[in-house]
């Protein structure tokens, strides 16, 4: 199958490669770019383990062709770590509040939560639960994930205030 040239910005870096028109974004990220944070859990858009951020929106990369997002700005969980290599706020709060167990859903969860908190910096518990409903977790029962996201919102808001 003929391949097409794809250019993306992933986690702040310009990347390019060749991909078949049918190549899914998740496979391009994982196989070609070796960005293995986003995972494959269902291949039908239900579980959200493959969630990435594309041009400011949460997208399930298992049902997106890389060709569809040519030129896009993509952030994966790898891009949410601080520049100095320390854990970003959400990563730290997931750890602090035991918001993960096997870790398989975590990259998608954190990437989705990152966008949710951009969309709504002060979410209620109900809004967090609704906003995260596209991401499945089999281990935690969500209670500590909700706590971690709520704590992240508080911390991000405090940081923003301190900066202003």
């Amino acid at each position, binding site marked *: 199958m003929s391949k097409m040239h794809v250019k993306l910005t992933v986690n702040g870096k310009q990347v390019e490669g060749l991909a078949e028109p049918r190549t899914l974004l998740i496979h391009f990220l994982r196989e070609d770019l070796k960005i*293995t944070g986003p995972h494959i859990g269902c291949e039908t858009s239900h579980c959200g383990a493959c969630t990435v951020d594309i041009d400011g929106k949460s997208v399930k990369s298992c049902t997106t062709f890389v060709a569809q997002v040519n030129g896009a700005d993509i952030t994966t969980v790898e891009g949410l770590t601080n520049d100095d290599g320390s854990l970003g706020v959400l990563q730290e709060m*997931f750890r602090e509040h035991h918001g993960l167990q*096997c870790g*398989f859903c975590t990259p998608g969860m954190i990437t989705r939560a990152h966008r949710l908190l951009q969309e709504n910096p002060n979410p209620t518990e109900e809004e967090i639960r609704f906003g995260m*409903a596209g991401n*499945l977790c089999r281990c935690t029962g969500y209670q500590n994930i909700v706590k971690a996201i709520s704590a992240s919102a508080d911390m991000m808001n405090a940081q923003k205030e301190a900066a202003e």
Partner: protein
Amino acid sequence: MNDQTLTPEERAANLKGMGCARKRVEDVRFTQGKGNYVDDIKLDGMLFGDFVRSPYAHARVVTVNKEAALAVPGVVAVLTAEDLAPLGLHWMPTLAGDKQMVLADGKVLFQGQEVAYVVAEDRYIAADAVELVEVEYEELPVITDPFEALKSDVVLREDLEGQTEGAHGPRKHHNHIFTWEQGDKDATEAILAEADVVAEEMVYYHRTHPCPLETCGCVASMDKVTGKLTLYGTFQAPHAIRTVVSLISGLAEHNIRVISPDIGGGFGNKVGAYAGYVCSVVASIVTGKPVKWVEDRMENLMSTAFARDYWMQGKIAATKDGKITGLWCHTTADHGGFDACADPTKFPAGFMNICTGSYDIPTAYLAVDGVYTNKAPGGVAYRCSFRVTEAAYFIERMIEVLAIKLNMDAAELRRINFIKADQFPYQSALGWEYDSGDYHTAWEKALKAVNYEGLRSEQAQRIEDFKAGKTRKLLGIGLTHFTEIVGAGPVKNCDILGLGMFDSCEIRIHPTGSAIARLGTISQGQGHATTFAQIIATEIGLPADDITLEEGDTDTAPYGLGTYGSRSTPVAGAATAMAARKIRAKAQMIAAYLLEVHDNDVEWDVDRFAVKGAPERFKTMKEIAFAAYNQAIPGLEPGLEAVSYYDPPNMTYPFGAYICVMEIDVDTGEWEVRKFYALDDCGTRINPMIIDGQVHGGVTEALAIAMGQEIAYDEMGNVKTGTLMDFFLPTAWETPNYITDFTVTPSPHHPIGAKGVGESPNVGGVPAFSNAVHDAFRPFGLVQSHMPHDHWRIWKIANGLGMHG
């Protein structure tokens, strides 16, 4: 901080040992997307395997034509049973003493069964080629009902035709697998005949699936130069897999290295040996290249290890004032096309004989008939210890049914039948010795915590309001007191494929006082790297943060039977404590030498040995570690390490009291969990944060199972729930918050008194949710209704009771 300025309590706190809510060490890599799961493994020249699967549940495979598939550029091989037969690998042994086709050998027995294995240069080409393999099938009559299977002339397993003896005794019919009997049949039937009251009911625990978020997969890599096979995979029991691979492939065991990398949840799904593993190994041997196989979600739900599917006919006898006198159970167990249940060899129905539950039932009888049908094989313990969830669901439903018959409050009925604290160790009528328990204390604490009396008053008012037409919502109070049996187990009665179910830990202390520990288990999210380091920290006084923990590599870890059935803490956790104690015993001798006193003149003090009566004279564990490597100590070998293989003397028996308060809309069948209270007694608590997390997750799995999750088939044997669109996994939106609580009754035979907790919430949660639904409709005449209680089924209950006008 080795001086005397810190109190013993402060020094203990610095260790982050047992009892501490230590943050998980695993999370630093997981939160950054730096886990290393099987699909993350990428080796040079790696090929991809994919299966051609049967669309039919029962059919002859007439021909398989590979030509078109092989013509696709990038396709390396297409394997069928014919190719595997010369190697003797077209069938493989199952964990239950049966055998299973690796690739269809003449016929298929369930939809989704593996027919051919395509190997290609990338996963897209493999998927293309799968579509091009032409298989001609001849359909055969399909049986999806185990009761019908036992009457049918249709022979499912033609390979077993004429065999009247199976792995577990006589076979009564060509679709029958085994009969397993426990307890005293005659005595139980005599009690039933004479009892004041007998309640009888069929309790069905439907077929479901563990569905971890990561599916099953492997990478097989045969190095033709060294003759060594490395097999990475989602294995809950890597050492057992190595032995099985050696036995069935003929490769010497030392030439096989099995590695379980990070595992994205297991819940029992990753215990078994699957066709994908065998085909990948063969493909790697044949091609000389690494071969990866990772199933997709539909394949996972259709073909790898289902759970449950038990039809449990029960009779429970009692005096008129509610004292239970006998329990009778006959279970028809649907095992699918092959008997691939993951149970210890001597227990073909697992520990179903824990079905007397938390109650002092003097006489009982259990019989289980295993049956072949045209469904997927498996029968794994989905977050439970070998059929314990089925047993707990059975007895907790039977208690409720008996309460209805006696017109008695179900909390009170439980209270008067609990095994009393002073009866432990308790011999159950079906053969177990319960090690410890204090059920009454837990029960009273739970009832008080939810204000049980208040809830019953509210419910009574609600019923009046409903009857008066003021509301269309009912209130259900779901009670459960469960007793588990976990930590398999004693080698004297527990083995899998002849491998005794001990487990192991090896600890090496480095000269500077840090350490590495390796175990025979493998974490799938339980946080072993965090908690087992805590056990060692408390036992030998080195900070948990200075202890690395490794599992899953059979070339480096000591042999063990893996992680499932809540056995890691009861068995490997015990091995960890015992290995640590061996180190401490040697450390004592080193300390005495350094302090120039007799061995018995020093005593342990948190992180050091001190001279008795002179606490200012001490050697810390760190100092002792260094001395072990740089001092010539008479009579002692250099170094400081130990290994323990722990064969537990008994199982452990965690228990708990769960209460669910549920609102149910009779017109829509919708439900809402208003409150869920979970009290667990898992003995000594190693890390309360992780225990709470296990309970949250386990109860959520129970919520799914009880309220909607199932593997359903139509009469043609088509799987109706093959994607996450149809197979219910609750989201954050449907999932309630849980209130967790605990009592502590340490296990008397476990070195640190721990019992295991990971599976309790699934075992206790399912009856709690189901009982809540039943309880809501009890005043309107409902006695028994089968799970899962999805909206449609709840609506049907209401409709059947005439509640829709």
